């Protein structure tokens, strides 16, 4: 089955400005029709705001949690902290 070869998406006038990418959402390559209302939305987009130095864990807790920063401590399901003291 010959795969469809895609041409370069049209990112709009300046290629790296987020506004121009958002503005041209319909025109850019977004992975085709997904039939779930997300057609035309970019497949992936990093969300990484500036991190403020705020409350931090005590070193011994930080090591157990794998991070010094509560805002980065994501307790995924099925994960448990090793308490050996």
């Amino acid at each position: 089955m010959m795969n469809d070869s895609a041409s370069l998406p049209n990112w709009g006038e300046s290629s790296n400005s987020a506004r121009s990418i958002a503005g041209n959402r319909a025109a850019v390559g977004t992975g085709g029709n997904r039939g779930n209302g997300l057609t035309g939305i970019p497949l992936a987009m990093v969300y990484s705001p500036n991190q403020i130095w705020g409350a931090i864990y005590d070193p011994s807790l930080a090591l157990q949690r794998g991070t010094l920063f509560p805002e980065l401590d994501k307790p995924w399901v099925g994960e448990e902290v090793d308490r050996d003291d």
Partner: protein
Amino acid sequence: MTDRAKLMRQVQNHAFALNEAALYLDGHPDNEKAIAYYNRQHNLLRQAVCEYEMAFGPLMQNSEAATSGDRWTWVDGPWPWEGEN
């Protein structure tokens, strides 16, 4: 936890906190609170390493404790793969 494990854990705690602060500073090099925290953990780490080494000999081969007096004391402690006794 044996005394040795307790002192080792103390070293690990501060080493981890120091490394986490360093990662934050990579992105926020002028943050005063982060720098103060880094300096504090750096000191606490040095003290923890010193406390460990006074009781159990050099923690790293290039530590000053490896040549205390006229002996290469690095060989007196357990080899890294011998683990906790």
